[in-house]
């Protein structure tokens, strides 16, 4: 599916450097100990992704070990960033490792001052019900003799952070439901 590589020394090839290092290590017991410290990314599953922040489209490698993200770095094979990343790009690991991500879907009842955790099924059922209810009560089939088949009572907003396929699906469902208030970050 994909091959990834590591960025080596500027001019010296990695293999040479490693050999050199090992040869020289032989003379220094202290160094031997330090080198025994395994490279953090030595035994990780590496997956290429594209940076979720700006639109330069830098390649990023995600290193996963024991079902956790242990490092993220610029994809050296990527022709744009060639292994480099800015502060934001360098930080994508924390999008996973952070403890700030919500644990469950959450529901806030009218007038309530707190969230309640809910299951996805419950949420989906309730949202589908609300969508249908609002759509059906506001749907306009014809206006001024023109078939318009729309509802202006539901609005959809966002998607610039999502994938093309997701955006396509969202616009498809929203327009399928008859929405005209479809907007996202490109407008602001």
């Amino acid at each position, binding site marked *: 599916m994909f091959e990834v590589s590591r960025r080596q*020394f500027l001019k010296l090839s990695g293999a040479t450097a490693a050999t050199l290092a090992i040869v020289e290590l032989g003379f220094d017991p202290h160094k031997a100990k330090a080198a025994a410290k395994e490279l953090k990314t030595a035994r990780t599953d590496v997956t290429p992704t594209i940076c979720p922040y700006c639109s330069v489209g830098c390649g990023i490698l995600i290193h996963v070990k024991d079902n956790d993200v242990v490092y993220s*770095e610029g994809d050296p094979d990527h022709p744009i960033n060639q292994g480099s*990343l*800015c*502060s*934001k790009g360098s*930080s994508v690991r924390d999008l996973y490792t952070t403890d700030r991500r919500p644990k469950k879907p959450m529901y806030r009842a009218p007038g309530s001052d707190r969230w309640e955790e809910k299951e996805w099924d419950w949420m989906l059922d309730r949202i589908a019900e609300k969508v249908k209810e609002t759509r059906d009560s506001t749907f306009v089939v014809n206006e001024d003799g023109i078939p318009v088949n729309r509802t202006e009572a539901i609005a959809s907003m966002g998607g610039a952070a999502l994938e093309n396929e997701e955006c396509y699906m969202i616009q498809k469902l929203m327009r399928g439901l008859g929405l005209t208030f479809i907007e996202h970050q490109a407008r602001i």
Partner: protein
Amino acid sequence: MTAYAKFVDVTICTGCRGCMVACKNWNDLPIDTQAYNGTYQSHDKCDGKTWNVLQMKEFETASGGFEWLFRHQACFHCTDAACEKVCPENAITTTDMGNVVIDQEKCVGCSYCVYNCPFEIVALADYVNEDGKIVQRAQKCDMCDSRIHEGLVPACSQTCPLDAIVFGTKEEMRKLAEERLAIAKEKFPNAMIYDPPGVDGTNMFYLLPEGPEAFDLPVNPKVPTSAVIWKDYAQPLGKMALGGTVMAVATAFITNKLFNKGHGHDEEGGDIDESTKE
């Protein structure tokens, strides 16, 4: 031994601070949010929790121009490393690649390196020791020792979008620095290479757009004279003198036993009270 070096071209750094995040990411360093200081700069200086800090300097040039300059600051990996010199535990060593590393398992947290670093880079920070206890140990940039010994460049260097941080043999880096200097002179007439001879050169060295003063860097950093006196004179001399004194005392003890029969107050003074012997 081939010395490797990290060359930092301050004239092209755009201040994105990718290096700072990559460093924390690779080294799993803790967060150390500082109080608002009135500028974009996040930390005053490097310390044990933040191994590299991007210094952001607003600077008015002599010709009335205005510059906003960004300097990646991290351990200089001095060839003549004061920290290594003063470490009483041999916890600080220069590796075969020229980077200076601290073995936190050997470090006892005495701070001698902290006080003697000519660049105020090394600092104590929390460290979980072998017993799982949190202790204070000297920490600083190790030039991503495990990476460079596997043929990878340091994390900051890999992430730098501008190749303002480049890693390679010192020789290659010196050459590159000279080339970059020639280009940089056009925009920055005062540009210079900062590879201070007082510490025998550093394995992290700069192309600076302005003199070191503009960046609060020492003009001629050296291993502190006090450290030289202490390590090269006071301590060896002290040990020798102590040895000499002990020898003299031992000799005197024997010679007095042998030759000083008629003197002293043994008789009058009685026995020595054992409890007062220290």
